[in-house]
Every structure is written in structure tokens, then in C-alpha cells.
């Protein structure tokens, strides 16, 4: 087995036993990237010198006998929405094409402190707005399981990199499903932590009441290890919680889930969910029952309103967040003649933002504007509360809730570009979770039409541990992990 094929915990173990060095691990990973990147196009930028330098430092530290964390020397990729010191960060947008952050996002700084070498920055839908990564201003990323299909989005580059063994681990961000849906269609594990669990300092904001950063990994143990690195209170993000210290996640992976109660969400198991996906999820529920989890149907009656609520709240917040891109302090500035500074702003922004971002800014400005605020935005905030109350009620009876993650397997590139409503349906199972602020985990649960299907496990606020525990027990029993994409072995 090549080093790049290993899970993070497998590689970390090999490094501790000195079966190979961190530099050798990074070299193996970089060689793999070189071999498959032409087909997959997961990365916007590679940082091989940085990765090798950080790997060398790990080897030196180990030789000196320094105490090292569990992921020291395990190389990772970061979604290009996260600021990386001295490494260009574009957020998939022309408006930030030349932006070189002078600081690290806290999530990146925590990975740096954990001594994880950075391989590069992954492709994404522009400003994390999309479900297929086709909205990137720079390139189309392909699903490693079928190169004619999308890798999901907006963290499509991170998911494709992990699925293609082109990164051992990756960071993504999730506003309406952008970690879980790509993880689902690429067959990886992906966790959207509770709102407040991970600092967003240095995350380029899309919709601030919904955005969270989280891991995309090859298996649940890796997810637990990376989430541990991220679960640190940060005074630089006032929404970062100090009231819920993270437990030892890996310590929860006992395989024993007897006595837990799971609710299967009725509204997310019928219409709109592909039969092949439904079948995989039903089998996963049976597997959990065999492991001793009591599964029962549960209703979340306001779930059906999640999509319109999200498509009011997210654009509203984006229209405010993206006001900062004005061609003054960073990023693109128009070269056209301008009459005054407002004209400069308007031309800069029209040139710099792609069509989907312009649309969401217009929608958001519209629903917030005079005369429409109560009918749209305020109404959406109220319905958001009803959705959260549905979850609160469900968690009085159940420890976790279950549903598909993506209603379909990966669709074909270009298939939904001209059908925005069909595109938005990709997030129908994931959006309610962001609105409620709760954590949710995707674990692979089989294949339909030869493509990966994902199971979504939703949990109580700040109870990522139970999700990881159940996800791990399922994964061990079901045996989907470790399957490799054949599309990449074909010459």
C-alpha cells in the first residue's frame, strides 16, 4: 500500500513507528496529486514547498523526541474560503484573484499548530454559493467516481481531493450542506459541527448565522481526530462557544451504540429522494438496528419550508457580507474609466462577481429592502424558529436523527446549470440542519448506479461525539470504507 492511500490515523501510526518519515509521506501525497490532478482538478493552488518544509520540521521534532499531536505530519488540503498566511486565497472568485492574506484563519492556524503540512487550496463554488462547484470562477472539478459528474459543492474540491487520495484530510465549510453533500456524492465522511463549535475567524463569510467549518475525511476516526484539532474556543470569533469544552472524540469510538434512540425523518425519506438513495438509507437503518439502536419514524413538519427560508436568509446575509468587496483594500478593481468612487465600486463588483453571486446579492438586497423586509426576511426568521422547535421536540425523544444526505447520487456536469431550482434541491436534506444550528455527519452508506450514497446523522447542539460514535459503529459494521474509485485507475 502506498502512503497516500492510508487513512490519517493509519499514516500517523506509521509515522510514530518510524516506518516512514513525514517528508516521505508528503512526497507520496504530492506524487499522487501530480498523477490524478489532471483528471480531477480538485485544487486551485498547490503548496508543495510549504508542505515539504512543514513535514521536514515534523521529522526534526520527532528526532529530537518532542511530544507531537496525533495528526503531526499528516498532510491536508484547505478549501479556498479559508485565509492562509502568504498563500493566495480567492474564494473561487475573480474579485479575490490576487488576494494574499497576511494571516491564517484560526482553523488553519490550529492545523498548523497540530503540525499538519498544507498541500494546497481546493476549488469551490464562488463564495461557497452552489452545490456542484460549477460556480467556481476558475475551473470545473470532477467526481473521482465518474469524471463526467460533479463532486458536489460548495466544498467540491476538498471532497474530490479526499476521494481521489489527493489529500489525506481536508477542511471545508458548510452553510447549507457544503461539506456534507459533496462528502456524500464523493463517498467521504464529512462533519458540519454545531454553530459555535469551530471559530470562523479568517473564513471568508457567506451567511454568518449559518456558516461552519468542518472536516472531510476518509473515515470516521480521521474525522474525530481532525474535529478535535478544530474544536477550540477562539476569542477572535465571538460566536465561538466557550461553554461546551470538546470531549475526547476518538475516545467515543467504542463501537458500542446499544440503547441509543434514532429518529428517521419521514419528510426526508419520500418524494424527491431517488429510490436508489432511499434503499441504501433504509439498509443503513437496518444495520443500526442490528447494532442495538432503536430506530423509529419521526416527523419534522416544518422541514418543507426550509428551502424558501434558506433562500431568503442566506442571500440577505450574503448581500451584507459581500458589501466589503469594493476594490479599495484588496482584490480586483475595474480598469474602466469611472466618474466617481460609487461608479468605481459598481463597475468593480459587476466585473468581479460571477452570475450566481450577483443573483444572490440582488435577491438579498431585495428581501431586505423597504416594503419587503417584513414579508420576506422577518417571516423567514420566524419560520426558522419553527424549524428549530421541530428539532428540539424530536431530540426530547431521540439521541440522533437520520436521513439521506444528498437526495440523489452525483449528477452530470452541466445537467442542472440552467435549472436553479433543481440545483437547490440538492441541499433539501442538509439545509434544515444549518437553520437549526445543530451538528450533522455524513457517512458513506452504499452505492446506487455505481455512485456513492451518504447517510446523514443529525445530533443535539454540541453533541458531535454521539454522531461520531454512531457513525463509527455503522462504518465498522457496514464496511464501505476503503473502496477506491476505479475511474482513476483506468489508464
Amino acid at each position, binding site marked *: 500500500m502506498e502512503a497516500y492511500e492510508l487513512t490519517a490515523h493509519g499514516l500517523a501510526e506509521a509515522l510514530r513507528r518510524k516506518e516512514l518519515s513525514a517528508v516521505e509521506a508528503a512526497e507520496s501525497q504530492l506524487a499522487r496529486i501530480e498523477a490524478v490532478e489532471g483528471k480531477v482538478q480538485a485544487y486551485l493552488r498547490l503548496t508543495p514547498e510549504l508542505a515539504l518544509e512543514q513535514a521536514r520540521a515534523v521529522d526534526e521534532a520527532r528526532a529530537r523526541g518532542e511530544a507531537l499531536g496525533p495528526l503531526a505530519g499528516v498532510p491536508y488540503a484547505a478549501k479556498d474560503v479559508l485565509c492562509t498566511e502568504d498563500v493566495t486565497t480567492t474564494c473561487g472568485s475573480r474579485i479575490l484573484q490576487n488576494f494574499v492574506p*497576511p494571516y491564517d484563519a484560526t482553523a488553519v492556524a490550529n492545523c498548523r499548530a497540530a503540525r499538519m503540512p498544507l498541500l494546497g487550496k481546493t476549488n469551490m463554488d464562488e463564495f461557497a454559493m452552489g452545490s456542484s462547484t460549477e460556480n467556481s470562477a476558475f475551473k470545473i472539478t470532477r467526481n473521482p467516481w465518474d469524471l463526467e459528474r460533479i463532486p458536489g459543492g460548495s466544498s467540491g474540491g476538498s471532497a474530490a481531493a479526499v476521494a481521489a487520495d489527493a489529500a489525506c484530510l481536508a477542511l471545508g465549510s458548510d452553510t447549507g450542506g457544503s461539506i456534507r453533500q459533496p462528502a456524500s456524492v464523493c463517498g467521504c465522511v464529512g462533519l458540519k459541527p454545531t454553530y459555535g463549535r469551530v471559530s470562523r475567524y479568517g473564513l471568508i463569510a457567506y451567511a454568518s448565522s449559518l456558516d461552519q467549518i468542518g472536516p472531510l475525511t476518509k473515515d470516521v476516526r480521521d474525522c474525530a481526530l481532525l474535529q478535535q484539532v478544530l474544536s477550540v474556543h477562539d476569542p477572535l470569533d465571538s460566536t465561538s462557544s466557550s461553554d461546551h469544552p470538546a470531549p475526547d472524540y476518538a475516545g467515543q469510538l467504542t463501537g458500542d451504540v446499544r440503547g441509543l434512540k434514532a429518529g428517521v425523518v419521514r419528510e426526508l425519506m419520500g418524494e424527491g429522494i431517488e429510490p436508489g438513495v432511499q434503499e441504501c438509507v433504509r439498509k443503513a437503518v437496518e444495520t443500526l438496528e442490528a447494532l442495538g439502536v432503536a430506530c423509529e419514524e419521526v416527523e419534522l413538519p416544518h422541514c418543507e419550508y426550509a428551502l424558501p427560508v434558506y433562500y431568503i436568509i442566506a442571500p440577505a446575509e450574503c448581500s451584507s457580507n459581500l458589501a466589503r468587496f469594493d476594490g479599495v483594500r484588496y482584490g480586483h*478593481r475595474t480598469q474602466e474609466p469611472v466618474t466617481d*468612487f460609487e461608479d468605481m465600486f*459598481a463597475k468593480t463588483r459587476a466585473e468581479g*462577481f460571477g452570475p450566481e453571486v*450577483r443573483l444572490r446579492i440582488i435577491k438579498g438586497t431585495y428581501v431586505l429592502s423597504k416594503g419587503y423586509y417584513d414579508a420576506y426576511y422577518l*417571516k423567514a426568521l420566524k419560520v*426558522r424558529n419553527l424549524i428549530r422547535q421541530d428539532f428540539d421536540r424530536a431530540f426530547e425523544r431521540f439521541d440522533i436523527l437520520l436521513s439521506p444526505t444528498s437526495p440523489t447520487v452525483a449528477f452530470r456536469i452541466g445537467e442542472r446549470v440552467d435549472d436553479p431550482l433543481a440545483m437547490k434541491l440538492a441541499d433539501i436534506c442538509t439545509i434544515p440542519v444549518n437553520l437549526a444550528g445543530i451538528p450533522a455527519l455524513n457517512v458513506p452508506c452504499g452505492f446506487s448506479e455505481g455512485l456513492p450514497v451518504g447517510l446523514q446523522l443529525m445530533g443535539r447542539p454540541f453533541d458531535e461525539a454521539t454522531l461520531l460514535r454512531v457513525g463509527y459503529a455503522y462504518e465498522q459494521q457496514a464496511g464501505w470504507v476503503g473502496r477506491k474509485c476505479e475511474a482513476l485507475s483506468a489508464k
Partner: protein
Amino acid sequence: MEQATRDDVAHVAELAHLALSEEEIARLQRELNRILEHFAELQQLRTDGVEPMSHAVPMVNVLRVDEARPSLPIDAIVGNAPDRAEEFFRVPRIVEG
């Protein structure tokens, strides 16, 4: 449900500082009206007495000690500007005269 007119979209584009062609305004008007239709189902739902929820995690007044911390080097900040003059961002004239 009300439809957004061409002038509504042009007005919103001005508020959002987006200089758009007529063709782009037409596209955005079409897309906006398509999504507004989709929002209509929300209006059917009764929400009397429901509190609006703007944040998922209840939190109030997060305070920190007011201590000086080192700031980023000026060059690293201004170095990202599309146009600069020494330690300043250069922009088109704002005040006439």
C-alpha cells in the same frame, strides 16, 4: 405575490453597487421572480406569536479585556490594495472642489 419589475431590480442593483447591463437586469428579474414565487408558500404559514430567530445559539454580549495586541504590519495590509500611495489606499476623488 407581487412580481419584481425591471425598475425594482435596477433600484436594488444601485443599492448593492452593481453596474449591470439591461440584459443582465432582465436575467436577474427573471430569476428573482422565479424564487419569489417559491417564497409564496411561506405566506400561507401562520406565525403569529412566533419569535424571529436570527441566531442558532443564544449568546449575549461577548466581552473581552480591552488590551492592546500587536496589529498586522501595514505593508502586508496595504500590499493587497489594487492602488496605494505609501501607507494609504488610493481611491477616486470623493470630495469635489
